[in-house]
Each structure stands twice: as C-alpha cells, then as structure tokens.
C-alpha cells in the first residue's frame, strides 16, 4: 500500500522535506508512518498528526492512499 506523507512548518525544516510517498505491506498506524517517513524512532509528544486532513491520535490505522500529515503545535497566539 502507498501512503502520502506531509510535514509542515518547523518540522518540515528539521526533516528536510515537505512531501513524500512511502510503501507499506500492512496497514500501519500513524506512528509507524512517522517512524518510516522521518527515520526517527519516537515521535515528540507535542507533534500533531492528521489523516486525510482530520486530527487523529498516533495509534490510528492508516489506509492505502491516505494522506498523513505531521506538524508542530499550531501557533494562533496567546490569549
């Protein structure tokens, strides 16, 4: 199965790419997608993830053709 991966903002700069495509044999979780796409074994606790533009938890299963995005906390500003 093929999964499209996106990184945004400071995470994109740290990882060095914004878009990539990865292949998996079995349906992975978002965390496993992170591990494969970023080459980092653990995902920092403050990183947010979305599947097909909906916020999800890292243990959510990803399906063939899904778009999985990872990004730092949003920065709308202080109250």
């Amino acid at each position, binding site marked *: 199965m093929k999964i499209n991966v*996106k990184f*945004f*903002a*400071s995470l994109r700069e740290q990882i060095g790419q914004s878009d990539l495509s990865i292949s998996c044999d079995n349906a992975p979780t978002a965390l496993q997608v992170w591990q494969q796409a970023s080459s980092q074994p653990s995902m920092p606790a403050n990183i947010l993830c*979305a599947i097909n*533009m909906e*916020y999800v938890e890292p243990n959510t299963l990803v399906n063939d053709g899904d778009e999985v*995005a990872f*990004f*730092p*906390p*949003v*920065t*709308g*500003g*202080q*109250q």
Partner: protein
Amino acid sequence: MIELRQDNFDPWHELNRYQQNLAPGKYGACCNFVGSMRDFNEGDVVAKMTLEHYPGMTEQFLQKICDEASEKWPLLDCLIIHRVGDIQPNDSIVLTAAWSAHRDASFAACRYLIEELKHRAPFWKKENTSTGDRWVSENTPPGS
C-alpha cells in the same frame, strides 16, 4: 463563509460588504473580532511574519468551527477571513464575526470562533526579527 487571503484586507469593509448580503431585519446583533499583526513579540522587534497553513485542512477546519458555532447558538450567519503568506506589522490577520437575533449568541459565537481557530486551526507563524527568522512555538492549550 470562510476565506483565506494572501493580501491585506480592510476588516471593516469586509464586514460591511458581507452584512449587505444578509437578510435585512433578521439579525439584531453582530459581534466581531479583528486580529492585527504587532511589531513586537517576546521582547523583540518583529519586522514581518510569514503565516504557513495546510491547504485544504485549514479551510476544512475553519468551516467546521463555523458549523459547530451554528449548532451551538442560533446564528443567522458567521464569517471568518484569515491571512496566509507574508504579513507586515499593522496588517489585519484575522476577522471573525457572528450575526444573531440577540447579542448573547453573537458574543458567545464570536468568542468560540476565534478561540477554536487560535487553539486548533493549522496555522504556523514564522517571525522575522533583527536576530533572524524564528518559528513561534508558544500557544495556550485548548480550554484554557
């Protein structure tokens, strides 16, 4: 309605223009919030800012919070306009507005729109200061 803009906008003109298309006589209250860019942050002068977003998800999320506000309160309509890209000090960044028959719903919905947007909508700020560019990392958690 939600809209992302690359260029600066006049929030008062936009508010007036949008309100012209609402059913006359059906609303008695409009509450709005306008956010503008400051030229300072964390003790530094900020010369400009770049606002990154997630095309598709950002628009979807803004529409979602408009829909949620309309479910929570009896609104006639609501509006969000938000900048993306390069922003200069004093530019408008965001306009949220909610129209209702009475003021309570309008006040509450406008507050809901801006707080949900700021806490959860996928936008990221990069500031340009005298010491270089930096990503803004602080925010307040949802519900605080």
